[in-house]
């Protein structure tokens, strides 16, 4: 997604130059999205009552 947006913004040539950065940051963005935030230890999640949706 990052790469596609970058191409739209700055063009293919520019994206080739910065591709390593895009890949590293995209990897970290993906890894962050995979972390389950646990109400036991994450302050914002703690505010939500548990229950069945």
């Amino acid at each position, binding site marked *: 997604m*990052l790469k596609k*947006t*970058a191409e739209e913004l*700055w063009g293919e040539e*520019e994206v080739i*130059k*910065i591709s*390593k*950065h*895009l890949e*590293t*940051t*995209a*990897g*970290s*963005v993906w*890894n*962050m*999205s995979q*972390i389950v*935030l*646990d109400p036991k*230890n*994450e*302050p*914002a*999640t703690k505010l939500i009552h548990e229950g069945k949706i």
Partner: protein
Amino acid sequence: MKPYQLSLKEAIEAIKKGELTPLTLTESLLERIDKIEPKIHAWVTINRDQLLKEVNHESKTGSTELLNGIPVGVKDIYSTKNLRTTMGSPIYRDFIPNDDAEIVSILKKKGAIILGKTETTEFALHDPAPTTNPWNITHTPGGSSSGSAAAVSTGMCPLAFGSQTGGSIIRPASYCGIVGLKPTYDLLSRKGVYPLSWSLDHVGFMTRNVEDANFMVGILLGEVKSWKVWNKLPRIGVLRGYFKEKATPLIWEGYEKAITKLWGEGADMIDVELPESFKHVQDAHRVIMSVETASVHEDLFKEKRPEYGEYIQGYISSGLLVPATTYLRAQRVREIIINDIINLIGDYDCLICPSTTDTAPKGLSWTGSPAFNIPWSLTGLPSITVPTGLARDKLPIGLQIIVGPFKEWDLLRIAGWCEEKFEFQHRPIDPVEPVK
């Protein structure tokens, strides 16, 4: 001994006793700079004319301020009134600030004299400075506080200031065989220090021994304490795991040797298991730093993109594309990591790990990995590097010591205890050229 070889405290004592004048000290440092700077390239600007005027003034007033007449090096991202401050960037090549950074103001109030501005990587990120490593001038001194580390190591000044967002104080200090202190986040003012990533940026400094670092913390916090090392056998949490995976064999060998030495001296050395959340350190740091760097530079970058170096261009571009929710998620994950580490550290007097993943890499095209410093920049915990000896490649190795937030006095006293045991030499070195 020549004046440039004196430690900070020794120079202050000698001036107090009348054995040395600020002018003699400054002349000795300038002579040292003239001799070795062509090989080391630690300085962007030397404040030569103004410096001698100020030193003469300090000498005549006979000021009793604690740093009376002591010349200090300052990284070139600290604003210095009427003294060029380039941020290591061509965009700021002629920038003359109207004011001093708050730390610079404090230094001046305490009688210090700004000797000059030390080399930094571009905007304190990655694109390297021309500085070389005094222990082997074909190797990097580390970054981003490259000039500060090399200048202190070679005796061009007894004290120099730097900043750390990833590993920019501890890593260069370790590569150059000196002491580097990164205090607790926000303990020292960042006002007037060009931001890279505001929630990760730390202000700190480098000296050639721990006693000098202790003295400087006292001056900056306004509570100078008499120096004594840790007076009991420390209970030390030994970090391996993540660090062993990333360290080179040379570094790991040096680390194990340091552990054995401290254990032999009676320290209680306990293997510590890192919390589960620790595995997210690098990703959380990358997301937060890339977004904040992009945010700091967003407007200037639009206008002057071609004048930015290759690495920082890519870094800012990638940060501009990170979703806001991911940045906030990274900050939430960071809070979990901080809580877990603070809970862990409470069982020990300190934690230890190697200061760097490797000894100073060959070449000047990159400044080495900050992987062993990032955890302590992300958590904001105070850390210090103390040289333990030389590796088989004749380059310095450092031990990184970490304590809980705002426990700088404990950190310094434990570091002093360790320093005594390692018996590393703390006098300035001459630049080493490789044998052809």
